[in-house]
């Protein structure tokens, strides 16, 4: 599972079957986290799995006496007659998949990679400034971010249209006309910092001697990136993709911009789930959505891991 970075030219010797911590000390070290995770992650997790097989609601008679309904919630979500309609689960699922591909894989990961590579070579002042803004987008509270973007995109007064106006472009009604691309750009903007930081750390852990050798051989930046940088951070790319895919799948922040609209055109699965569980108070169905989301995340993770591994063998 782990690609050991080649830190020295001397191959690192792994001492097999020698553990620094005894099992007892290990168990002790694990106890605090184990307790917290058991209570606040594992118990709720199994509750969700269990409830996804019932018709439990928050209000109404099924709140008091939920019934076991087997796979009915899952069948209802995958009801073929309206599966692809807007506002239904299938539409949200496809939308979310496109959203993940566009904003997490193409957006955050690629932009993060580009940024990480760029800031290796630019002067410290530029690096500092760029890094700060990219990271600011990542760390500011989401209510603040949501409001900033709302003001930014406003058709009549927004900064973006004012800017387009100064360069002679027509103003756009972005939230209504291109809501999907708005949330894609938004999520890329919001999350690129993580990939950038991860990749830039990965790049800087590559021994400089590798690049110096390439410089001597007259390699271009692109060649260095493709032939030295990229292969050596493959393991990190897999980690990055697993995390940002999961986060993007679960992100709720676009709701602050679009409320999932107009006409459910930006209703991601997380927003759909919120609507089912919070507006309609159907916890059974909401739980089923959560379980399906987890399975999809699992599938993504397995794909990344297997790609990462395959490439390594070659």
């Amino acid at each position, binding site marked *: *599972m782990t690609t050991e970075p080649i830190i020295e030219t001397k191959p690192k010797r792994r*001492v097999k079957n020698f*553990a*620094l*911590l*005894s099992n007892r*000390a*290990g*168990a002790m*070290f*694990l106890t605090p*986290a184990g307790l*917290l*995770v058991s*209570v*606040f*992650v594992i*118990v709720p*997790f199994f509750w*969700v799995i269990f409830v996804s097989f019932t018709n439990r609601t928050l209000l109404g008679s099924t709140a008091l006496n939920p019934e076991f309904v087997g796979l009915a919630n899952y069948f209802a979500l995958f009801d073929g007659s309206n599966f692809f309609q807007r506002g239904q689960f299938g539409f949200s699922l496809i939308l979310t998949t496109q959203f993940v591909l566009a904003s997490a894989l193409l957006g955050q990961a690629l932009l993060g990679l580009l*940024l990480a590579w760029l*800031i290796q*070579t*630019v*002067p410290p002042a530029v690096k500092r*400034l*760029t890094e700060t*803004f*990219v990271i*600011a*987008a990542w*760390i500011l*509270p989401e*209510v603040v971010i949501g*409001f900033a*973007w709302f003001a930014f995109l*406003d058709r009549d*007064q*927004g*900064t*973006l249209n*004012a800017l387009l106006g100064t360069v002679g472009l027509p103003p756009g009604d972005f939230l209504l006309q291109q809501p999907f691309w708005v949330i894609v750009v938004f999520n890329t903007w919001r999350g*690129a910092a993580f990939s950038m*930081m991860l990749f830039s*750390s*990965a790049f800087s*852990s590559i021994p400089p001697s590798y690049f110096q050798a390439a410089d001597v051989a007259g390699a271009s930046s692109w060649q260095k990136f493709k032939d030295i940088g990229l292969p050596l*951070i493959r*393991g990190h790319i*897999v*980690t990055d993709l697993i995390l940002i895919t*999961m986060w993007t799948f*679960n992100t709720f922040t676009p709701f602050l911009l679009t409320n999932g609209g107009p006409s459910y055109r930006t209703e991601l699965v997380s927003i759909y789930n919120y609507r089912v*569980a919070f507006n309609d108070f159907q*916890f059974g169905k*909401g739980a089923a959505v*959560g379980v399906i*989301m*987890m399975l999809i*995340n699992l599938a993504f993770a397995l794909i990344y891991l297997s790609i990462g591994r395959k490439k390594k063998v070659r």
Partner: protein
Amino acid sequence: MKLTLPAFIGRIAFSALAALIGAAFALPLLWFLFAPFNARAELGLAIPDPWTLSNFVTVFGNSFAVQALWNSLIQSVGGVILVGAAATLAAYALSRSSLPGKGAVTYILLLFSSVVSGSAAMVPIFLIVSAAGLIDTHLAVILTFAGGLLPTAMFILRDFIDSIPKSYEESAMVAGASPVQAFFDVALPVIRPGIVVVVVWGFVNIWGSFLIPFILLRSDDQMPASVAIYSFYSEAGTPIVTLLAAYSLIYSLPVIALYLFVSWKFGFRFFGGIKA
């Protein structure tokens, strides 16, 4: 070092591109530099005329909102201390012991936590906290966040520790240190940059979160700023732009300060990156 002309042009192009991307990231936030200081701020970008602190005066007059910032701080600091400590210990154990099944456990927990972050899990979490008698306490929020953030924190830290050669602690133990001593005296200082990353990430998450504190807290004097910000919505339920902008700026300062402090003091980066 001598630069050839194409390489020089290349560097300038790189710098320009990096600066351009940086500027694009700054654009949506530009509004926040001006609106808080403008007594007549609207959604449009406008240089305040005159610059004024009157919005801040009004905001500080709202004792609920001021108290809320303090509450946010208690909950975030409490949460990250717990996450940082528990995740470090756990990640170290997973990296350095030979407990059975340790390989897959962080992945599995990561997936579990993705389910639990969804809305449906609010009910069991509420019931657990309620059974423990902790509703309407800071502790409830701190514990819930600690539990929820731990899987990811462990995932990040574990990889971090994996990338540190075992020889560090081995040599300490050869010199007679116990494993626990080796952890505290040798490993911990080396892991510190990783802990810093987890702490900042955890702090940012707790600081911005609305749903969990809202579900678990009841009284005004416990609510964090993410909830209190709604007191700057008008009778009609619309944001009062001037006050919201001022409060947002105050609300954002701690995370910015934390980031600047950490990157100045420790350097904020994923040491060696996290890899699968």
